[in-house]
Each structure stands twice: as structure tokens, then as C-alpha cells.
């Protein structure tokens, strides 16, 4: 009998998994909440995306063609994954946050979780002002909507991702005042051996990064190392930022403040994996809080595999390689099979790249730029001072008393930060509802179930 492989997420990892699972003879079902496949990396819209922002497009086009042999559910928000009695995935299909979407239930023999990651943005005084967005938002808006949030943007945070973001903003018609990277020159030289865009060996990545760096040079965009945006100013909207030197621990260095005029800020301090589906499926997490997988990308739960950013932050090429291995293994293929040896090798190479991203890991000193009244939880407007009051309470009690992480985003934005500030794990990633569902849509499941029984 043909094995049915369900794939959650149609980003690079999910699509590569679909391709490999199909090649191993499986019946493949892909689900993604997006209107188009491609995930965060290939966020293209035929009419709206500037062609210059499409990287590795040939690869995407090929994966897209292959995916046609699979059943692909677009606009399918997966809100629940059950593994207690076999694998069952519950989704709602229809326009984002619609009120009358169609319920879809997929039973499968194996599941590949490839839900990716979202940006992590550290709080900065003033970061709730309109005009402050995440680096990923700048990228997504530029790519998918051809839109920019301001005329003059400061891109700040850490990691090589800041480069494509600055590039996209410029291509979409904005100007980038500065790119501000918290990692210092010395740390970067130590971590990467040389500047990241000169990185040899990681073919695709190095070329791509070099291209972005070239763009920055051409446009004479200043690139600052060892500095951070430590305050955002403005009445009702962004008017300027304070940029300041930070030490190796990311502690702001007094006396180094500069004011940079701008009307928007794109903040990105790395990525947070979207773990809720994996947690609901019962998968073990590592102490660093990624899904634990073995050589076959198999998780701790039988027949459940994971690939891409949920297993570690490594970028699109890593996700592609891991996805291929996961899809192949989920379909019952063996890693000794010739057809998968290329992906296994690529994965090894890319993991070396991923390790270097540690250079940009968040330093503990950043909390030095917070004020007592800086909002930490954006949904519920919870300040740092309020959090400190409850730092000693049990995590449930703290959450219910401050409401931090209890708002609309369910701690997706502030969770890791709250944990840092109260120095305790809060288990924000455990979310019973994986994506939006309306009470009426849930009610219809009950009615459907009861009709079946009658």
C-alpha cells in the first residue's frame, strides 16, 4: 500500500520534503496557510514582486512543478495535530481569518513538520510606535506587496538576514539610513573567518550575500558593527532613533549615543522556531528549544519528522536539504539510497554554515537598553516593571497576573523575551490552538460529527 505523507508547511523544507517523498513513491499532501507555496523565503507574487528579489528562482520553479504531483492545500491553516491514535491533521481552508472556512481533516501514515520560524525582535523603548516593524515584515511587505513602511528606514538587529532586508527595502523604493548589526567586527571575524558575504564553500549563500553587500555599497548605505538601536523616538510615529555602541555582551556603552533621523525601523534579532505543531504532536525539544531529530530527521514521535527552521536556524538552503531527507525518510526511503545522498551531503555542508550564525546570537546585556516602562508584551501592553513584580511567582500565576503572553499573539512575539526577563521558562510554545479558528467553525465540527453518528 502507498504510504501517505502529510507535510505541514510549504516553505523550502516542506517543498523539498514533498519532492523527495514523491520520488520515493508516497502519496503526498501538503498544507500551508499561505495563498501561495514558497514559505518565508519564496514569498513571490506574480504581479507584485520585483524580480530582483527572487533568489534561487529556478529551484523554486522546479519544486513548484514537482509539487503539482502532490495534493497541495493552500490557504489551509492547520489548527490542530493529533498523534494519539494515528496521525490526524485538522485544517481550515479559506481566506485568512475568514469566518466560514471549510474544515479539512487529513489522516496520514507519516507527518513532516516544516513550520519554519518567525523573526525575533527585542523590545526597545519606543518599539510600539507605528513605523517600527520586524525585519521579516520589511522583507515580506517588500516582496509580497511591493510596499514599504517608511521613506527612510534604519535596519537594526543582528545576523546576515539584515542584508537582504536592506536590499529589499531599497528595491521596493525606500531608502535605508543605516544597517546596524550588534555583533562586533572582531566577533564576526572570529565567527565567520571573514565577512559573511565572502564566505567560501557555501556556494549559494555566499553568492547571495555578496550580491546584497554589493547593493549596500552601491547605495552607500552605512553598515555599523557592534552597535544597536537602543531607543526609538517620536510622537505618534517614528521620528528618529538612538544608535549606540554595545559591548561583546550587547551592553549599551554610555556616551556613544548618536541620533539618526528616520521614519521607520526594521528590527530583527534572529529567529524563533514555530514549535506549536511539533509540541502538540508530542515531539521532544532540545534545551535550546528546537525539535530534536535524528539523522533521518525523525522526531521522538513515531512517524513524525521535522525539517527546516523548526529544527535549527540555518536559512533556506539548510531547510531544503533537511526537507529532502525528511520527506524521503517519511516515505519509507533509506538514507543509503543513492537518490538522497546529495541532500545528505548538502545538509552536512549547510549545518556548518548554520553553526556560524551563533556569532549573531543575542547577548545578555541588551536588557540594559530597556526602561522600566518599556512595553514587553505588545498585545497586552505589559511593561518590564510589571513583569519584575511577578518574577518570583509560578509561571501560570505570573502570566495571569501580568497578562504577559496571554494576548492575541499568545506569546509568539514576547515569549522568549519574557522568559529572559523573569529568568524562568514559561512554556509559551505550548499552544492548544495552532492557528486562528472561530467559535462557529469549531461548533460546526461538532455538528458534523453528530450527523455522522446519526
Amino acid at each position: 500500500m502507498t504510504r501517505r505523507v502529510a507535510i505541514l508547511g510549504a516553505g523550502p523544507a516542506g517543498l523539498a520534503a514533498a519532492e523527495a517523498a514523491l520520488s520515493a513513491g508516497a502519496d503526498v499532501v501538503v498544507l500551508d496557510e499561505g495563498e501561495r507555496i514558497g514559505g518565508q523565503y519564496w514569498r513571490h507574487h506574480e504581479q507584485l514582486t520585483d524580480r530582483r528579489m527572487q533568489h534561487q528562482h529556478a529551484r523554486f520553479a522546479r519544486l513548484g512543478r514537482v509539487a503539482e504531483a502532490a495534493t497541495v492545500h493552500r490557504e489551509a491553516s492547520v489548527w490542530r495535530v493529533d498523534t494519539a491514535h494515528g496521525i490526524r491533521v485538522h485544517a481550515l481552508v479559506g481566506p485568512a481569518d475568514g469566518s466560514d472556512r471549510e474544515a479539512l481533516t487529513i489522516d496520514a501514515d507519516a507527518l513532516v513538520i516544516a513550520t519554519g520560524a518567525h523573526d525575533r525582535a527585542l523590545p526597545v523603548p519606543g518599539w510600539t510606535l507605528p513605523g517600527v516593524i520586524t525585519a521579516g515584515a520589511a522583507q515580506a511587505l517588500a516582496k509580497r506587496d511591493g510596499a514599504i513602511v517608511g521613506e527612510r528606514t534604519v535596519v537594526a538587529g543582528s545576523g546576515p538576514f539584515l542584508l537582504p532586508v536592506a536590499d529589499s527595502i531599497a528595491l521596493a523604493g525606500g531608502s535605508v539610513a543605516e544597517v546596524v548589526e550588534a555583533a562586533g567586527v572582531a566577533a564576526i571575524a572570529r565567527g565567520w573567518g571573514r565577512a559573511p558575504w565572502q564566505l567560501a564553500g557555501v556556494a549559494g549563500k555566499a553568492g547571495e550575500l555578496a550580491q546584497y553587500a554589493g547593493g549596500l555599497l552601491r547605495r552607500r548605505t552605512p553598515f555599523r558593527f557592534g552597535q544597536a538601536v537602543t531607543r526609538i523616538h517620536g510622537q505618534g510615529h517614528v521620528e528618529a532613533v538612538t544608535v549606540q555602541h554595545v559591548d561583546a555582551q550587547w551592553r549599551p556603552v554610555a556616551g556613544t549615543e548618536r541620533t539618526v533621523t528616520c521614519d521607520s525601523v526594521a528590527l530583527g534579532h534572529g529567529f524563533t522556531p514555530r514549535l506549536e505543531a511539533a509540541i502538540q504532536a508530542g515531539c521532544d525539544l532540545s534545551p535550546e528549544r528546537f525539535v530534536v531529530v535524528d539523522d533521518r530527521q525523525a522526531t521522538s514521535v513515531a512517524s513524525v519528522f521535522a525539517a527546516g527552521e523548526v529544527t535549527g536556524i540555518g536559512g533556506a538552503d539548510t531547510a531544503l536539504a533537511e526537507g529532502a531527507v525528511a520527506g524521503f525518510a517519511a516515505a519509507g526511503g533509506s538514507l543509503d539510497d543513492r537518490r538522497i545522498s546529495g541532500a545528505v551531503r548538502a545538509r552536512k555542508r549547510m549545518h556548518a554554515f548554520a553553526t556560524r550564525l551563533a556569532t549573531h546570537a543575542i547577548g545578555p546585556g541588551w536588557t540594559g537598553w530597556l526602561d522600566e516602562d518599556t512595553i514587553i508584551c505588545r498585545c497586552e501592553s505589559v511593561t518590564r516593571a510589571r513583569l519584575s513584580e511577578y518574577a518570583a511567582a509560578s509561571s501560570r500565576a505570573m502570566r495571569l497576573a501580568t497578562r504577559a503572553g496571554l494576548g492575541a499573539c499568545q506569546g509568539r512575539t514576547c515569549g522568549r523575551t519574557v522568559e529572559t526577563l523573569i529568568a524562568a521558562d514559561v512554556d509559551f510554545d505550548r499552544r492548544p490552538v495552532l492557528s486562528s479558528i472561530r467559535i462557529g467553525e469549531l461548533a460546526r465540527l461538532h455538528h458534523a460529527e453528530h450527523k455522522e453518528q446519526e
Partner: protein
Amino acid sequence: MSVRIRFDGEEIAGRDGQTIAGVLLGAGRRSWRLAGGAERGVFCGIGVCQDCVVTVNGIENVRACQRTALEGDVVEREAR
């Protein structure tokens, strides 16, 4: 190709296929919601943070950055 939506009693035109957030930003609107008395608009841009939610055709809590604008959509602010 263009798409027109109503927001704050005004007609706003965007490009076909844009999200509601894209249309609003294109029209120079940077915030469209109140949270704790302060203006908010788009933040994460990928459906994670819920900062951008609006009421669309009477249905509350629709993420503007995720919902593609359709001709004639009536978009209203939310406040809390």
C-alpha cells in the same frame, strides 16, 4: 489592475493582489488600530503578532497582513 476598499469612510485604491496591510500602507496609512490607547499598524508582517487586526465586512479580528484585499471590502478599525 487595481482594487478598492473602504477604510475610515474613505475609498482607498491598491494594487490587485495586495494584502489589506499592503493597500493601507500604499495609501500612506501606517496605523489602523488602537492598543491601550496607542496607535498600531503592521509589525511582524507574516501573521504572527496580531498587531494589524481589523474588522473586514463586519467580521472582527482579521489580520490585515494576511488577508488579500478584495474589491469593495469594508475595513474598520479595532480598539481595545
